[in-house]
């Protein structure tokens, strides 16, 4: 049984003009010990998905309209807030994008780590301190014992992210959700953090969800990938599959829009840009949401009328499109 199974999740935000359907029918699962990458551009709903799993969506404007989130046998949508708090940090941990604002500037690093330990594991102060030092060493912060007493402003961005990781791992969670963990970091620092996450994941036998807009990060960190667009999943496959044989026009376009670091490219290569903009989630079209921007939508009218379903094109490769690459190839001229 997968560790986390999300089925048909819908999270809407109530606004003055109606409901913004930020997450509109998302299903995926995460196996123990594997990393799932959720990739998409801004506004596609990837962060809201993660926050919904953690129960961290701001409840007044946002609400989970329907769907199920099964974590280790528990149905998270039915669980009370108090129990969710127990789960958070203990079983599921999350690290966020901006390490500058994720840490409380008025508390020492030591306090912020031991706080979690004492809350969930009922450790004594001395035990918690000792464990905190161990954790800092695990995330490769030099001179850990002395640095416990430092305040966040004395740490660089990369180090703060490591501290976040240390806090997240402190109670040995089964699942770690990393929401754009490296976006705010320099590229060399990013590499270090990604390496660290991978090592720790293996040591602790954790499952991980990495949310990002960076295909490179996905290629590096993820075993399986989910591509999101306009609140829905448009393609789902293992990482190797997705990069070798992308099916959905959006995935293809996304990969073509990336300037490449190696191989052919440089000044002469033309970057594919996707005309237009993602649909308004207040009133998403009933038809395929990518159709207005899709180079293949004109081939027949099906896409502009009905929304395609997510179907399994190949074993474990799901696509929500009327014109996936392999089917286009089949329509030979």
């Amino acid at each position, binding site marked *: 049984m997968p560790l986390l199974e999300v089925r048909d999740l819908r999270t809407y935000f109530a606004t003055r003009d109606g409901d913004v359907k930020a997450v509109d029918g998302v299903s995926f699962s995460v196996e123990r010990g594997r990393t799932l990458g959720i990739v998409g551009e801004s506004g596609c709903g990837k962060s809201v998905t993660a926050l919904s799993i953690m129960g961290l969506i701001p409840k007044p404007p946002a609400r989970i309209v329907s769907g199920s989130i099964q974590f280790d046998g528990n149905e998270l949508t039915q669980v009370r807030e108090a129990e969710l708090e127990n789960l958070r940090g203990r079983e599921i941990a999350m690290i966020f994008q901006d390490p500058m604002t994720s840490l409380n500037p008025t508390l020492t690093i030591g306090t912020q780590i031991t706080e979690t330990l004492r809350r969930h594991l009922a450790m004594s102060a001395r035990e918690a301190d000792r464990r905190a030092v161990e954790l800092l060493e695990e995330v490769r912060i030099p001179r850990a014992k002395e640095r416990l007493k430092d305040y966040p402003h004395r740490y660089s961005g990369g180090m703060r992210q490591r501290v976040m990781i240390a806090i997240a791992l402190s109670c040995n969670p089964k699942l770690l959700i990393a929401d754009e963990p490296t976006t705010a970091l320099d590229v060399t620092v990013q590499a270090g953090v990604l390496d660290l996450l991978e090592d720790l994941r293996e040591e602790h036998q954790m499952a991980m969800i990495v949310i990002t807009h960076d295909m490179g990060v996905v290629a590096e960190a993820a075993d399986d990938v989910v591509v999101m667009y306009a609140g829905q999943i448009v393609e789902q496959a293992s990482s190797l599959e997705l990069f*070798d044989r992308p099916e959905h026009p959006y995935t293809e376009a996304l990969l073509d829009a990336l300037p490449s670091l190696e191989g052919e490219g440089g000044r002469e290569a033309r970057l*594919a840009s996707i005309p*237009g903009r993602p649909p308004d989630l207040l009133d998403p079209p009933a038809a395929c949401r990518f159709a207005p921007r899709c180079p293949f939508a004109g081939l027949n009218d099906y896409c502009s009328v009905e929304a395609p379903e997510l179907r399994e094109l190949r074993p474990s490769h799901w696509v929500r499109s009327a014109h996936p690459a*392999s089917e286009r190839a089949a329509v030979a001229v």
Partner: protein
Amino acid sequence: MVVNPQQEELRKRVLTRSGRVDAGAPIRQTSLWRDAWYRYRANRAAVIAGGLFLLLVVYVVFGPILSPYDPYAVDFSQAYQPISWSHPLGTDQYGRDLFTRAALGGRISIGIGFAATIAIMGIGIVYGSISGFVGGRLDNGMMRFLDALYGLPYLPFAIIVTQLFQTVNFYVMVIALTIASWFTAARVVRGQIISLKENDYVRAARAVGARWYRILGRHLLPNTLGVLIVFVFLELPGVILGEAFLSFIGLGINPPKASWGSLAQDGRDVYLAHPTMILIPSVAIAWLILCAFFIADGLRDALDPRTRET
């Protein structure tokens, strides 16, 4: 990978055509002011306060016009009338209708309040802009000077000013209340200018060669508008209280001229027997101050969404 070359060609052609792809239509079509109005409306207390404030303004503007009574006419036979339909707030020791006098007094008090607040903002804008915009040693010097000025006691200074003139009228009061109250406004404006200076659009203007007056007048000051409007409503209570206090102790507007403070002065000696005479101006002042604070709160939410609590 099986690829149909024709499909590939079509796809690549569509997606890699000139960067002059149409940028598309605006994604949002509201005006900033309308958004602000919506946010203001969401604060129920602010809306109610706004309504009550307007009510007060209507009262002080139209009250004396519609009233059949002469606010200065003395008629001892009518002294100390209780509240009744013909005298909604009763009369004072001289038989003058308090409803009318309170409205008249309101004109003066609110008038002084707004005038002084605007004067405070004016001086504050000039001082704060120069200090914040020029920066460096001048800013340092101006701020240290301001720090020293903060030590000046506001009320004694106001009193001194009122005594410098032969008669204390509207303009004298405005000067008195402004002279030692503009320091915070200068600080606020300076802070705004300093933080706005960091915006890229200011750099862009400099890169184009815009001169200082253009940058200040077109880029910096207009963007401080939101903060300044809120500040007006936060300063107003202080100024109104200042006028009331000065007039109450006899160093401001004196009877028979009506202001809320002078009305309070009228009632000062007889408050035990006739408490309404002090209560009326006090309630009026409290009404205005409470409204101003809630309005300021609503305006702050409306004009600067980041300060809202979720």
